[in-house]
């Protein structure tokens, strides 16, 4: 048996789906979180012996597909014919939701209505006569509060009872009218009558309430942007400077009791493995492969897990409380000036967790050019996988200065704004040509338990990636570094003859203008970074034989390790900053490029996007290194002329593209 969860955006379909199936799909207190359909089996707790598949569909306001998500939903219901439709209705907005309901009731598919968010109605003193509603709509109505899993057993039971029954059409006169605006207006007036019959309200939506007063502050033209900046700063500060590092390094209480952090535990594990292998007199090469290549590289990446998990937790809370929709309102006027939709702020914020869902979130932007621009620019926001890279460089070169991380996020935002202008110039789209409308959901207290689950599941994915893709990459890097071209082991001090050195050298030559030296290790890290950004950390750890990148015991040691790492890398601080920026803003990992490919459809946009990212990253890091070196040493750094030529070529191509558009 297959049931489809259908309803308006932000009515709680995915929350119902997660509760019924035990899955952990992303939810958020705003319209348009779910952009693709998802299927899973309902838990035995609800379905008993029967096997029921639930299908979660993107939100829709009507059967006529006006948005990309509505298209998916409409097509699914018409073509896949689910056995029963579960229509999730926002009980606080019957007058809008039931429009879609009346359309669904005409499809002839048995239906059950889940009257969701009834807790909000209770709070406001709104009463809905469910029995009457059920009688008028000729289908069962079950009251639910999906966030607390209330009413779900009754909902599934009602759904099972509906299986195989015939769904009567409640308003035959409406169904017979030819489809169109006139019929839909009648439908709305029918809904109005119906709501008047079943609903009694104490609080009216048209009256200003406490939430509106909060909105006045959060979306205030002058205060809104600083508030937004403060919220985002807090998210990054807590994850990267306050809570994250404590979880990674451990915490020593005043009485001397030390709570071990993740890195401490990993180090102990690694030492134990080395010790055991030594005792067993294992092959020294295999021992090195296992401890330095595999455990070393993977643990370097896993060590940053606490920082990433805290970030996920906070982003989840942010999604849940209803602030995201307000952030789009604040940024819309600013974004419009550079030709982006205010809705693009959602892909950018989601992108700070991971670029892939960020890129997919851009689907809710109706204007195609604005949507494409958002897809191309989302990867500029440093994502969770780039966080270890930032933390590594901040720790190694800048004594863990928090400004490094903050600077990277702001650099990302500035790049997005500048590149949006450039993209508009090149494509010639009119930034003032689009309208903006977004639903403002009711604020709610974020659900800590759900955020915790979300954090764990995304943390699990991070570990999985570290244990698979990153493990393999590290092992490959270690092997390529250990053998030369004639497959003989590389002799001590002859690392430059290894296979890896040969492969990475051409890239290293290209990186001289931003690094000041030709370092094949750095080049290799950049290349493996395209597979997954955490690889930058893993590869550097393997190549330079250092895995303890976050330190364990207090500040002095931390500084000690930092300087040590910096000395091993053999580049200046300015070069480190430039290299970090190059890795952050160059084309993202394969997964994100795949997502860009899926969303952009037109290959010109895809290749344009990748070229833009590469050009921007190279130009920016070149400028940072050369200008920085000029300021700190009084003369430009190595590779200046070569880099300058490359940057001038980029500038010429960009100017050419802009002029071509002008002529057209």
């Amino acid at each position, binding site marked *: 048996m297959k049931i489809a969860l259908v309803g308006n955006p932000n009515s709680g379909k995915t929350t119902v789906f997660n509760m019924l199936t035990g899955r952990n799909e992303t939810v958020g207190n705003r319209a348009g979180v779910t952009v693709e359909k998802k299927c899973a089996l309902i838990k035995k707790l609800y379905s008993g012996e029967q096997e029921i598949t639930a299908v979660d569909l993107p939100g829709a*306001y*009507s059967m*006529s597909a*006006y*948005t990309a998500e509505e298209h998916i939903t409409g097509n699914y219901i018409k073509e896949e014919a689910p056995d029963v439709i579960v229509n999730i209705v926002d009980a*606080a*907005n*019957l*007058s*809008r939701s039931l*429009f*879609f309901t009346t359309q669904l009731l005409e499809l002839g598919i048995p239906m059950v209505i889940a009257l969701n968010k009834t807790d909000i109605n209770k709070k406001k003193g709104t009463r809905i006569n469910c029995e009457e509603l059920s009688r008028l709509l000729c289908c069962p109505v079950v009251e639910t509060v999906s966030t607390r899993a209330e009413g779900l057993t009754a909902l599934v039971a009602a759904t099972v009872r509906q299986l195989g029954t015939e769904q009567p059409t409640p308003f035959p006169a409406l169904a017979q009218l030819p489809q169109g*605006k006139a019929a*839909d*207006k009648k439908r*709305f007036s029918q809904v109005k009558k119906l709501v008047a019959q079943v609903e009694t309200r104490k609080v009216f*939506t*048209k*009256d*200003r309430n406490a939430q*509106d007063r909060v*909105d*006045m502050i959060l*979306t*205030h*033209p002058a205060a809104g942007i600083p508030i937004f900046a403060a919220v985002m700063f807090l998210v990054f500060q807590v994850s990267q400077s306050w809570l994250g590092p404590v979880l990674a390094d451990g915490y020593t209480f005043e009485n001397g009791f030390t709570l071990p952090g993740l890195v401490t535990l990993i180090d102990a594990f690694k030492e134990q493995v080395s010790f055991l292998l030594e005792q067993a007199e294992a092959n020294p090469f295999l021992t090195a492969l296992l401890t330095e290549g595999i455990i070393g590289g993977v643990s370097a990446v896993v060590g940053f897990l606490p920082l990433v998990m805290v970030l996920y937790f906070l982003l989840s809370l942010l999604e849940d409380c209803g602030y995201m*929709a307000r952030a789009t*309102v604040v940024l*819309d*006027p600013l974004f*419009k000036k550079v030709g982006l939709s*205010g809705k693009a702020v959602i892909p950018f914020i989601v992108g700070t967790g991971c670029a892939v869902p960020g890129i997919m979130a851009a689907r809710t932007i*109706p204007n195609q050019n604005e949507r494409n621009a958002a897809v191309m620019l989302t990867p500029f926001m440093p994502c969770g996988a780039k966080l270890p890279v930032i933390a590594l460089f901040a720790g190694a070169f800048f004594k863990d200065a928090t400004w490094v991380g903050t600077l990277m996020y702001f650099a990302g935002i500035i790049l997005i704004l500048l590149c949006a202008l450039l993209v508009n110039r090149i494509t010639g789209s009119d930034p*003032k040509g689009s*309208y*903006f*409308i*977004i*639903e*403002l959901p009711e604020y709610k207290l974020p659900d800590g338990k759900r955020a915790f689950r979300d954090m764990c599941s995304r943390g699990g994915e991070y570990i999985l990636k570290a244990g698979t893709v990153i493990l393999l990459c590290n092992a490959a890097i270690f092997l390529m570094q250990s053998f030369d071209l004639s497959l003989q082991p590389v002799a001590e001090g002859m690392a430059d003859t290894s296979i890896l050195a040969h492969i990475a050298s051409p890239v290293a030559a290209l990186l001289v203008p931003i690094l000041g030296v030709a370092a094949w290790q750095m080049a290799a890290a950049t290349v493996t970074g395209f597979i997954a950004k955490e690889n930058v950390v893993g590869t550097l750890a393997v190549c330079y034989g250092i895995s303890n990148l976050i330190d364990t015991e207090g500040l002095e040691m931390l500084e000690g390790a930092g300087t040590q790492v910096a000395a091993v890398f053999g580049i200046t601080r300015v070069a480190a900053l430039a290299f970090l920026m190059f890795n952050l803003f160059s084309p993202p990992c394969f997964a994100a490029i795949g997502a860009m490919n899926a969303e952009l459809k037109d290959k010109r946009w895809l290749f344009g996007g990748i070229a833009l990212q590469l050009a921007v990253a190279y130009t920016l890091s070149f400028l940072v290194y050369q200008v920085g070196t000029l300021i700190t040493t009084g003369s430009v750094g190595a590779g200046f002329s070569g880099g300058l030529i490359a940057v001038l070529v980029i500038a010429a191509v960009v100017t050419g593209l802009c002029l071509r558009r002008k002529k057209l």
Partner: protein
Amino acid sequence: MDLMTIQEGREHIIDRVQTGDEALENFLFTLGCYAGEPITVIARRWGSCTVAIKDGRYNMDTRLAKAITVVEM
């Protein structure tokens, strides 16, 4: 009168929605934003305004707010 000029907090009736963007107007229709329906401006600020349509709250930019003309109830 359009949404940018009417008094905040007072219910009005939509007279016309004229954006020149058919897809958008169809979308607005499904929200219940079309001629003959009530609409209330909750608050206005630089660049946008918040409105109540049916039992939902929406924020729209000035351009869209100007494209929706209303009459007194």
